[in-house]
């Protein structure tokens, strides 16, 4: 800055102002000679004022920049047309200084002068690059997830749909974009899903549920466990919903296998009682057949023998049929109308042998003769089988097993009460945990009640235990009536 005494105060002020601006400002004439520059340009370009002012642009800017930006041509154009050029990008590296990024504008100010303003945007540029990188990373997290991740607007219209969603549903993003999410749900569950979206508008909490997603390509559905979360903007206003879904098929398969193998274990427990019970009718048949082989028998006795044989074969076969029905893999999980009373009676028939062997009396008390629930017969039978076997195990020296069925409002309550060893207060809340068992190693797996719990939950019911050590136990199953 020269201390020229001829400068008036306006000029001095103008120069001060120019130097204070955090941008580089250059005045250039028609011959592309630099007329003046501000302080900022000298600092950024690492040049002295003498080596800059009065020099041609081509000497001040590196050749690469001139070539890559075509800035000289742009300036000539501005002189020619009088129209400003704004917001062009330029990367500039002064010797010994890291690369900087500028936005520049060329503005005509007089007939033979333009002003070149260069704004250093390196930092902003770096930040926006960073934002873009984070965005890309987030997007790839969502894309790589094996769970379904989708977002919707506030009314439930799909905005994003990740590749897991595409893969599981067979629907591409284009096919679902802008459409209501509940259009891709099972018809019976549509209204429920619609209500969840309604709730998301005002709720702060996530909502967890299970329902089927349509897979139109094979005109089927898949069962998914869903979590709905409201998506908020900076002002905590709900702007949409994020939905994450996990395919339950694999888990269901394992659960089925576990239930099945636990059932086989229960069958093993009953083997003793079954042996006794089947050998009785066998013994009767065998002896009666031997009578028939004797020589002088009366017609009446012959008939009596034949009748006994038939009746006892029937008896043995009934025992086997019950067993088969229980052992049969209940792979069907479809909920149908089930008569709870006949489930309980059939299950009691199955454990009667075992109970008899252990001198246990079974009482069944009914209010009604027919109680209908929605359920899977085989699974409900497995539940009561487990509960009965536990009660029988708790009464090694005999006792009474009572089964009481009551309906209260829209529920049915089944109480299974025994006079066995009971459960200590500290153990009571653990008995539904998997692998919690008081049986010796190799005899109980501790899975019985945890499987009962999961089956009853699947039937939208509940299961509880009441007991005191030494005073028997009550297992209480509640199910919704149909």
């Amino acid at each position, binding site marked *: 800055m020269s201390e020229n005494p001829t400068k008036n105060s306006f000029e001095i002020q103008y120069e001060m102002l120019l130097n204070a601006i955090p941008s580089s400002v250059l005045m250039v004439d028609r011959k592309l000679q630099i007329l003046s520059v501000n302080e900022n340009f000298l600092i950024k370009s690492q040049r002295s004022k003498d080596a800059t002012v009065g020099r041609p642009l081509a000497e001040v800017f590196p050749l690469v920049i001139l070539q890559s930006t075509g800035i000289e041509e742009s300036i000539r154009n501005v002189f020619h047309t009088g129209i400003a050029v704004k917001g062009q990008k330029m990367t500039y590296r002064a010797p010994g200084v890291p690369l900087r990024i500028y936005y520049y504008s060329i503005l005509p100010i007089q007939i033979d002068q333009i002003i070149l303003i260069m704004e250093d945007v390196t930092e902003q540029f770096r930040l926006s690059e960073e934002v873009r990188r984070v965005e890309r990373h987030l997007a790839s997290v969502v894309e790589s997830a094996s769970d379904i991740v989708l977002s919707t607007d506030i009314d439930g219209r799909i905005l994003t749909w990740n590749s897991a969603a595409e893969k599981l549903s067979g629907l591409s993003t284009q096919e679902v974009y802008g459409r209501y999410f509940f259009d891709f749900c099972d018809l019976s569950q549509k209204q429920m899903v619609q209500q969840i979206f309604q709730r998301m508008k005002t709720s702060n909490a996530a909502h967890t549920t299970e329902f089927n997603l349509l897979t139109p390509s094979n005109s089927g559905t898949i069962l998914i466990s869903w979590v709905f979360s409201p998506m908020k903007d900076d002002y905590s206003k709900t702007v949409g919903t994020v939905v994450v879904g996990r395919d339950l098929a694999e888990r269901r398969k394992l659960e089925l296998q576990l239930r099945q193998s636990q059932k086989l274990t229960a069958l093993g427990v009953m083997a003793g009682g079954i042996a*006794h*019970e089947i050998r009785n009718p066998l013994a*009767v048949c065998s002896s009666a057949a031997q*009578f028939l082989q004797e020589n002088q028998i009366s017609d009446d006795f012959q008939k009596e023998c034949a009748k*006994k044989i038939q009746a006892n074969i029937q008896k043995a076969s009934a025992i086997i049929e019950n067993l088969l029905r229980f052992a049969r893999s209940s792979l069907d999980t479809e909920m149908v109308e089930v008569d709870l009373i006949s489930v309980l009676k059939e299950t009691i028939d199955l454990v009667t042998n075992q109970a008899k062997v252990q001198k246990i009396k079974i009482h069944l008390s009914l209010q009604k003769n027919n109680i209908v629930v929605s359920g899977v017969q085989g699974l409900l039978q497995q539940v009561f089988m487990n509960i009965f076997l536990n009660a029988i195990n708790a009464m090694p020296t005999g006792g009474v097993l009572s089964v009481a069925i009551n309906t209260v409002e829209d529920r049915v309550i089944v109480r299974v009460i025994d006079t066995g060893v009971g459960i200590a207060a500290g153990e009571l809340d653990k008995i539904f945990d998997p692998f919690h068992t008081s049986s010796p190693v190799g005899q109980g797996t501790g899975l019985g009640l945890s499987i009962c719990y999961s089956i009853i939950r699947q039937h939208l019911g509940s299961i509880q235990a009441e007991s005191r050590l030494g005073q028997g136990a009550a297992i209480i199953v509640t199910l919704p009536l149909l």
Partner: protein
Amino acid sequence: MNKNVLIVDDEPDMCWVVSQIIQLQGLNVFTAYTGEDACFKLSKGDFSVVFLDAKLPDMDGLDVARRIHTMVKERPQVVLVSGYHYRDDPVVRNAQEEGIICCFLAKPFSNEELLSILIALSS
């Protein structure tokens, strides 16, 4: 030797079978369907042989045998008839060694076998 035989089984058809097998032997056949009833009849009457089922609704057959052992002065010969045990079942062997039962018959059995046991025991 008296001629009273008691058949203890909760299954009426089993009692029928056993009594059919032994009825031509000129014996008096009685039946009991529960352990309690068996103990009662044994404490009242005089029996030479008891055919005893191993699993009764109220008691274990072997417990009935044990009660007879201590309770009755003129002890009958006890035959354990069972579909629950097998021949060399340790429980059965122990009971035999203790003298609580004199022999074991597995269900189903041959009528011949039951008869020969009865004849052997009453001679």
